[in-house]
């Protein structure tokens, strides 16, 4: 008799849990690299049925159907995936397509693409609720904030002994000319957070002449978008751009490769690790946090 | 009747045509002769309103040419230019058929007229061919058929202006074409034709206008205009003037 009651209670609880998770969206479409990463970090990868062109990380997302560029979404294409929810930033468009999706019963959740902690907090809270992982979201958030604080402390300490290095971030588009990250980009934010001085004075990504780059004379160069890694990338860059070899960074060989998917769409989960790597590169003689420390 | 009254045409500072007073009476063929640059084509352009006139007047049936509404004018005045830049693969029938556009005579009648005009220009056998596949001479005959079709069958009150219609034709066709033009005039139409060949002009024209440097050198019947002195003065060519043994018109033989 007791067993039966226990089973009944368990069954009830189970059905409650089941119906509770039924209320959560099960089929997710994500338009934004950072958002996709967070969904995966919160354990929601199995719920993703479609991602946009900027969702390149983790690599397993490549096997999902692609919905194209976030500002040129196709209503019928997305509807064919039978999604319950579409997450993305206010950049999504065109507006008539979003209207059509809403009319078809797809929930559209707008997240912030701003590169600051309050925006991240907002996003994580929302995503946590929608995925039924509120606790984990909170945990990720506090860990993130903690790491950023640690990061800031390390930088402050390093700065006491060494000046901030001049840093340029170069974006290379397969064969095209190099573009320099300007002062309002996420790249600039990351450089500053890692204790460097971002040299781009313009806004957005713009080509800068070789002469100007020589005048800026960066001490560290960050290279995004190269197909090569490590030494090979550095050598290729300096070979193809001999002027850069004349800068301090070129002469000292301080060229780092950085994953370009980190540079779009707001703060993603990999940012603290990247900041740690950058700081280590910016202040090679100071004691810094290693990428593995801090969870 | 098309008339030009005290015509003066200037291009920039240059006077290209002056002192022109001519009439194109019905049933008569007026030939316009002169060396290159004498103003023949300018005269034709002025007479059909293509060229702005500096002074003087061109009138059709006592009304200024410019005052005529387009379609009305097209039923009375047809112009054959020296060359055509048609670059599209119309059939010969379609090209000649365009001559009927100013009229509202209906498809059946139009088709008949097109055939008759093609026959007059000795081009009926070309009717179904593509215009672009024709030789220069054949194309010229097709355009002649077109302007004939525009005024078909030719009657008093209609005027035909032709700019060197025989320039690309072989000797036989030169004659057939000009005979067709004469037949047109016989039915009452007025014709003005620019020619280079003096003998053709002598044979087929009722009146001749000899131009030199934009001025009329002589105006009258062929026997009066085509004199050795006049031709030497205008063309710088020494000639002998004989009479055609069968027809009696002047025969010009270069020395």
């Amino acid at each position, binding site marked *: 008799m007791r067993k039966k009651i226990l089973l009944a209670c368990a069954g009830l609880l189970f059905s409650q849990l089941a119906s509770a998770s039924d209320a959560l969206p099960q089929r997710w479409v994500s338009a934004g690299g950072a958002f996709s990463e967070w969904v995966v970090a919160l354990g929601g990868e199995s719920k993703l049925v479609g991602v946009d062109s900027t969702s390149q990380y983790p690599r397993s997302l490549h096997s999902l159907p692609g919905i194209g560029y976030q500002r040129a979404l*196709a209503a019928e294409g997305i509807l064919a995936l039978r999604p319950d929810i579409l997450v993305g930033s206010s950049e999504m468009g065109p507006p008539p397509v979003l209207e059509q999706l809403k009319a078809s019963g797809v929930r559209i959740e707008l997240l912030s693409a701003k590169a600051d902690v309050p925006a991240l907090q907002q996003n994580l809270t929302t995503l946590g609720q929608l995925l039924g992982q509120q606790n984990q979201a909170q945990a990720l958030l506090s860990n993130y904030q903690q790491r950023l604080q640690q990061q800031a402390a390390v930088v402050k300490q390093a700065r006491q002994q060494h000046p901030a290095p001049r840093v340029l971030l170069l974006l290379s588009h397969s064969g095209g000319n190099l573009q320099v990250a300007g002062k309002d980009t996420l790249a600039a934010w990351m450089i500053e957070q890692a204790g460097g001085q971002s040299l781009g004075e313009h806004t957005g990504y713009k080509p800068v002449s070789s002469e100007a780059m020589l005048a800026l004379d960066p001490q560290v160069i960050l290279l995004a978008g190269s197909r090569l890694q490590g030494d090979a990338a550095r050598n290729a860059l300096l070979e193809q751009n001999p002027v850069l070899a004349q800068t301090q960074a070129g002469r000292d060989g301080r060229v780092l490769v950085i994953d370009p998917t980190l540079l779009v769409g707001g703060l993603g989960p990999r940012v603290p690790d990247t900041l740690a790597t950058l700081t280590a590169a910016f202040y090679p003689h100071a004691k810094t946090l290693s990428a593995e420390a801090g969870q | 009747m098309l008339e030009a009254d005290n015509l003066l045409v200037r291009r920039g500072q240059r006077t290209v045509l002056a002192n022109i007073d001519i009439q194109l009476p019905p049933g008569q063929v007026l030939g316009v002769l002169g060396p290159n640059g004498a103003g023949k084509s300018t005269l034709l352009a002025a007479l059909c309103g293509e060229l702005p006139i500096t002074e003087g007047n061109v009138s059709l049936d006592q009304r200024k040419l410019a005052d005529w509404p387009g379609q009305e004018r097209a039923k009375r005045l047809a112009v054959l230019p020296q060359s055509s830049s048609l670059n*599209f693969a119309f059939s010969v029938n379609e090209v000649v058929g365009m001559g009927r556009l100013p009229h509202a005579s209906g498809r059946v009648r139009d088709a008949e007229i097109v055939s008759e005009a093609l026959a007059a220009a000795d081009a009926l056998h070309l009717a179904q061919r593509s215009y672009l596949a024709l030789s220069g001479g054949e194309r010229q005959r097709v355009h002649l058929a077109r302007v004939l079709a525009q005024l078909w069958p030719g009657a008093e009150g209609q005027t035909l202006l032709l700019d060197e219609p025989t320039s690309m034709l072989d000797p036989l066709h030169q004659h057939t074409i000009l005979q067709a033009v004469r037949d047109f005039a016989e039915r009452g139409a007025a014709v003005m034709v620019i020619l280079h060949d003096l003998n053709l002009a002598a044979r087929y024209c009722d009146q001749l206008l000899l131009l030199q440097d934009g001025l009329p050198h002589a105006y009258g019947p062929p026997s009066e205009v085509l004199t050795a002195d006049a031709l030497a003065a205008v063309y710088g060519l020494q000639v002998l003037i004989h009479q055609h043994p069968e027809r009696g018109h002047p025969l010009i033989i270069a020395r």
Partner: protein
Amino acid sequence: MTAIVRPRPMLLALGLVLVLVVWLSLALGPVSLPLGETLKAGLRLIGLPLEGDATQQADLILGQIRMPRTLLGIAVGAVLALSGVAMQGLFRNPLADPGLVGVSGGAALGAAIAIVGGSLVGGLPAAIEPYVLSVCAFAGGLIVTAIVYRFGRSNGQTNVATMLLAGVAMTAMAGAGVGLFTYLADDATLRTLTFWNLGSLNGASYQRLWPLLIVAVAVALWLPRRAAALNALLLGESEARHLGFDVERIKLELVLCTALGVGAAVAAAGLIGFIGLVVPHLMRLLVGPDHRVLLPASLLAGAGLLLLADLIARLLLAPAELPIGIVTALIGAPFFLFLLVRGRT
């Protein structure tokens, strides 16, 4: 023989092909709707109350997504093809393209100003934002064409050769303007601009459709009435004058028709190339140069071809979409090379 086929059967065939393509455009798409549901939804659109299994979804897909898109495709394809015929008649050259009078370049510049200017100013009020792009593109096309036309005018006459050169120059200037705005744009805006330049029927809605439909219907009704005049114009301007046509007025009408038609099409769907060049050319090979047949044939073929290209655009990479300008170029360019090889141009 100049025309390969007789006109009436050809027009009938083209009409049937268009109906078939319209049907395909409504029946096919990334969402697989059973044919029965599509049929019922279609009948519901015209008022018959029929219930089906997936009524609401079918209504949405067919009525809100595919139908406006199909209508947009028909209007844009027809207008671009008709304008192509008009320009090939105006310039008396089978290689002419509506862009020669500068309307495409001007529209691109207008769009660039709207897209980039809007973001530079910090965003536009939501009420007018959807319309600003279309209005600016349309205005840009009209203004540049007006300038080109003005350059071609002297002494009350329009010199077509001068207009051609002016069109080339103004298109280059508009391109420079677009380049400048490209430089000023931030990355998101840049991608928007790029996609607009490639053309798309995506996001079609009845609301944005009706201005274009009005213009398209006007052009489609008006141009065929000028068919005889266009034929005469091909003989030459003075020949057409001697046949009794007011050539100056016709030239103005042709330019105006192209500016309004192409301007509206570009404003609604972005830059879509090759339809205006390839369709009239192809139709001329099939039905001959007589505009009385060429105009309706080009209208039908242009609409059909664009709908076909759109089908490919939205099915090939589903759920994403290929910009339609890419597909028309991929169809148009090889075809053009084929024509060159055959020596028909």
